[in-house]
C-alpha cells in the first residue's frame, strides 16, 4: 500500500498541491572497523589446562575437551567503508482542505571500501513513511505507511489511523494495519529477520491499537494506550501491550507517572514516578523512582527465560549561575537488580548498580560554549567510565564549529578489561544557503592498551552531510542542525 502511495504523493505534489515542501539530507560517511575474527591454535601448543587458558602473548583461548584446537577471538583485518545515505522527505498540502501527502524515502549505497560492514548497507531503498492525510478541525485520518508514537514507544506499520476530538480537551485515535519490525521498516515475515534469526516467524503481524489523551486542565494530562500485534497465521500474538501516563505541570514543578505493561504475560515492563522542581533561584531538582523489566516480543523465546530487571532511584540537580551562562548538573542513580532465581550459579555478580554524572556548560561569550561531563556507571556485570570536554564556536546564526576530546573505558560485559579509548572529534555546521547547511564531522580514536583478544578501537571516522529544504510559506523550518 505504501509503495503505491509514494509515487502518487510525489507525483501529485508538484502538480496539484498549492504548496509542497521537500527536504533532503545526503550523508557520506567514512568508517574504519576491525571486526572480530575467530581463530584457533592447536591445543597441544597451549600451556596449562582447563577450559580457559592464556597464551604467552596474553590471548585468552577456550579449549573445549575433545577439540584439538583452542578457539579465540582476535581483531580482524582493518576494513573501511564509505556508506552513502540519501533521505528525501516530501510534504504536500493544499490538495484540498486539510489534505496532505507525506513521504519519507531513504536510499543507501556505498563508495568502494568493504561491503557489508555497515548496518542495512544492502537495503538500497527503504520507505520509512508514505501516507495521505485528511485533517479537519476535529478529526484526522491517515492512510499508508506511518508510525504511531505513544507511551508504548515508536511503532511503524502500513495501515490506517483515525483520530478525533470527540469532546474538548480529549483526543482519541485508533489504528490498524500490517506491523513492521521496529527500526527496520520491514515485515517480520520478510527477509530482514531471516538474515539474522534462524527462527524468524513466517507470519506477518497485524497491529491494532487505540490511544486516548485527556487534558482536564492546563498542565494536567492523562493518556492510555493499548496495542496488540496479532500473527497473520492465527497462531497467537506477537505482542500485547498497554500503558497509562499522567503528568502535572504547574509553574515551578512537574510530576509524571507512567506504567507500561505486557498484557499478554500480565507483567509490568516499566513503572516510573518523576518529579521536577525549579523553585526560585538557581537550582533545579529532579528525582525519579523507576521499576524496569526487559520486554521481548512473543515470537522469541527470550521471555521464557524469565528476565529480571531492576528498581532504580535517581536524583539530580542543576545549578545555573551568572544569568545561566554557567550551568552545572549532577545526576546520581542507584539500581537494585531483581532476584534471578539461579541458585547454582558459580559466579557471584553484583546485585546492585550505581551511576554518577557530573557535567557543566559555560557560555563565556555569546558565540562560545564550553561543556564537559564525566560519568561512571557500574552494574551487575559491567562498568564504564566516560568523560568528554568540548568547545563550540557559533558561526553566524546557523553555523558552528565544535571540537571535543573524550575518553572512555569500555564496558567489559563479563570480559577482561579492554583498556581505555581516547578520541578527538570535530564537527562543523556551515550554512551554504538560507535553507541548505553542510555538516562535517571527523573523529579519531586511539586505543593504546587494547588487548590482543579484544575489539580494537583504533580507528578514524568522518562524515559529510548536506541538508536542504525546498518549499514556501507557510512551510516551516527544516532541521535545526540537530542536537538538543
Amino acid at each position: 500500500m505504501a509503495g503505491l502511495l509514494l509515487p502518487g504523493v510525489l507525483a501529485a505534489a508538484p502538480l496539484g498541491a498549492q504548496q509542497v515542501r521537500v527536504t533532503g539530507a545526503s550523508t557520506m560517511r567514512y568508517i574504519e572497523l576491525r571486526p572480530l575474527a575467530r581463530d584457533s591454535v592447536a591445543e597441544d601448543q597451549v600451556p596449562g589446562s582447563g577450559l580457559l587458558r592464556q597464551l604467552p602473548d596474553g590471548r585468552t583461548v577456550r579449549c573445549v575437551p575433545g577439540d584439538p584446537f583452542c578457539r579465540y577471538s582476535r581483531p580482524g583485518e582493518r576494513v573501511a567503508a564509505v556508506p552513502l545515505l540519501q533521505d528525501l522527505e516530501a510534504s504536500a498540502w493544499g490538495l484540498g482542505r486539510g489534505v496532505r501527502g507525506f513521504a519519507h524515502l531513504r536510499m543507501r549505497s556505498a563508495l568502494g571500501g568493504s561491503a557489508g560492514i555497515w548496518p542495512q548497507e544492502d537495503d538500497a531503498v527503504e520507505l520509512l513513511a508514505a501516507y495521505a492525510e485528511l485533517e479537519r478541525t476535529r478529526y484526522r485520518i491517515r492512510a499508508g505507511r506511518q508510525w504511531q508514537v505513544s507511551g508504548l514507544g515508536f511503532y511503524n506499520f502500513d495501515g490506517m489511523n483515525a483520530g478525533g476530538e470527540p469532546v474538548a480537551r480529549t483526543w482519541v485515535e485508533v489504528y490498524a494495519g500490517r506491523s513492521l519490525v521496529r527500526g527496520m521498516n520491514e515485515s517480520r515475515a520478510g527477509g530482514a529477520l531471516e538474515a539474522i534469526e534462524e527462527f524468524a516467524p513466517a507470519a506477518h503481524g497485524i497491529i491494532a491499537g487505540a490511544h486516548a489523551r485527556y487534558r482536564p486542565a492546563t498542565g494536567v494530562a492523562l493518556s492510555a494506550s493499548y496495542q496488540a500485534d496479532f500473527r497473520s497465521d492465527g497462531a497467537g500474538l506477537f505482542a500485547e501491550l498497554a500503558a497509562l501516563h499522567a503528568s502535572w505541570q504547574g509553574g515551578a514543578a512537574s510530576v509524571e507517572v507512567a506504567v507500561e505493561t505486557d498484557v499478554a504475560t500480565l507483567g509490568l515492563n516499566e513503572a516510573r514516578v518523576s518529579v521536577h522542581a525549579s523553585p526560585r533561584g538557581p537550582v533545579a531538582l529532579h528525582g525519579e523512582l523507576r521499576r524496569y523489566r526487559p520486554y521481548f516480543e512473543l515470537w522469541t523465546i527470550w521471555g521464557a527465560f524469565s528476565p529480571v530487571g531492576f528498581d532504580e532511584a535517581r536524583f539530580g540537580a542543576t545549578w545555573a549561575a551568572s544569568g545561566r551562562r554557567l550551568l552545572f548538573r549532577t545526576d546520581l542513580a542507584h539500581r537494585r537488580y531483581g532476584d534471578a532465581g539461579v541458585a547454582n550459579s558459580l559466579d557471584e555478580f553484583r546485585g546492585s548498580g550505581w551511576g554518577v554524572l557530573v557535567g557543566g556548560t559555560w557560555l563565556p561569550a555569546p558565540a562560545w560554549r564550553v561543556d564537559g561531563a564525566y560519568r561512571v556507571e557500574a552494574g551487575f556485570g559491567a562498568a564504564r567510565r566516560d568523560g568528554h570536554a568540548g568547545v563550540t564556536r557559533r558561526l553566524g546564526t546557523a553555523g558552528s564549529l565544535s571540537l571535543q576530546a573524550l575518553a572512555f573505558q569500555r564496558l567489559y560485559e563479563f570480559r577482561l578489561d579492554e583498556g581505555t579509548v581516547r578520541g578527538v572529534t570535530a564537527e562543523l555546521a556551515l550554512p551554504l544557503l538560507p535553507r541548505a547547511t553542510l555538516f562535517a564531522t571527523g573523529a579519531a580514536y586511539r586505543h593504546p592498551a587494547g588487548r590482543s583478544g579484544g575489539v580494537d578501537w583504533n580507528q578514524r571516522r568522518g562524515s559529510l552531510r548536506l541538508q536542504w529544504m525546498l518549499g514556501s510559506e507557510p512551510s516551516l523550518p527544516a532541521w535545526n542542525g540537530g542536537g538538543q
Partner: protein
Amino acid sequence: MTRARLLQAGTALAVLAAGAGLVRGAPGGGDLFPHAVHERLFPVCESCHAGVFADEPAAAFPQPAHCRHCHDGVRADSVAWTGAAPRVSNLRFSHGQHGRALAAAGEPASCQACHARGGEPARMDVGAATAERCIACHEHSATTHMALPADCSRCHLPLDRVAELSAGRIARFPRPPWHEADDFILTHATTAAPADASCGVCHARQTCERCHANASALAAVMALPQDTRVAQLERGRPAVYPLPAGHAAADWHLAHGTAARAAVGSCANCHTRPSCTACHAGGDGRALALVAQLPPVAPGAAPGVDPARITRGVHGADVRLQHGRLAASGQLDCAQCHARAECSECHAAADSRAFHLPNFVERHAVDVFTGRGECQACHSTDTFCRACHAQAGIASGDMKAAFHDGQPMWVLSHGRAARLGLEACASCHRQSDCVQCHSAAGGWGVNPHGPGFTGRGESRSAASCRLCHLASPPRGSGS
C-alpha cells in the same frame, strides 16, 4: 458659556496667535517680541494686530517698516524682523470666527483673556495661550488638556490636513502623559478606541506599522492616512513588543495554544509567523492552520516579536530520555513543535546525531546495560542490535571462541547473568544458540524458565513454545 467668556477666549486666542510662533508664525518660533518693553508705546493690541479678528493675515502683524520707525539704527537698534511667516498650525481655530462669535454674543474680544501670562489680565503682559485657557471655556471631556478621554480631534486637525507642518514640528508634539504609562503599549488599542480620531492628530498609519505586522488587518490602523513625514520619523525606529503579564507565567507554553485558538488575531498584533515556527516546526496541520493566520515577515514591514525571545527551555536537560513520556501523556503535543523528520532521524536510525551523543556507537553499551537508554522505545533490540553486531563480528556465529573470557566457568554461570541482562544477550546471540541446551525436545534439556514462570504469555504465542517443546522446531515456517 457666557458671551463674555467667549469674547475673552477669542481675545486670548488672538493674543496667542500674535504671541506664539505656532500661530503667528514668527521666524524661529516663540514669542520674539518683548511686549512689556513696548507697553507704553502701544496703547491697544490692535495697534499692531488690527487684522487678527478680521482674518486678514497681512494685517495681523505689523510690517517690518513699522518697527524701523524707531529701530532705524540711530534712535534705537535696528532689528532683524522681516515680517510674519505664514501661520502653520493644526488647531481648529480662527481668530475671526471667535471674534465674530463673541461679538454676536455682545461681548468684546479681549486678548488678555487668553494671552495674559498672570492670573489677572494685564495689558502687554502676554504670552502664548495655553490649552488650559481653551478648555477653561470650551467644553472638554477630560480634566486636563491631554488626559483621557480627551477627544483631540475636536480642537486639532489630523496630520493629513496640515501638510505645512514639518516632520520636525510633528516630532516635537507634546507626548500625552497617559502615553507614559507602563502598560500603554499593551493597552493603547483599547484606551484609544473611543477616540481613535485623536490618534490621527499626531500619528499616521506608519506609526502603527512600525510594530504591527498585521496593520493592514486592523481597521483602526487603516483608518489612519499614510503620511510621508511620519514615515520619515518612524524610519529606523525599532519595533517595541513589551511582554504581557500573562505571557510571563511559567506555564504559558502550555496555555498559549488555547489562547491562540481563541483569538489568534490578538497574537497577530505582535507576532509574525516566525514567532510560531521558531518552536512549532512540526508542520502539524492544526498548527499550520493557525500559523497561517499570522502575518508573514515582509520586507519593510514590522518584524514581529523576535523569535529568540520566544524560544525557551520547555524541556529539561534530559529531554532525550524524557520526551517519550511527555509524548505519551499528551502534556505536550510533539507534532506541534517538532518535524516528523526529527523523530525518524533517530527512531528510524537514519543518523543519530540529533539524539544520541557523539560517538554513541562506540559508547552505547552502558546505556543498554543500565536500561537508561530505553532502547526498546525505538528498536527491537534482539534484531536491530544483532544485525549490527553480527556485521562487526561481535555477535555469535561461533560459540566456541573465548568471548566471555572474564568468567572461566561461563557456561555454568551464565544463567544468572542472562536473566539480569537478557537484552544484552539477545543483541548478539541467536535463539538457536540457547536452544542447543535449553530445549525440552533436544539438546541437554536444561529448563530455562525462572521461578514464577507461568507460561501465560507464551501460551498466547504457542509458536514460540514449539521451539523447545517440539522435537523439530519449524525453522522459517512460523516457528
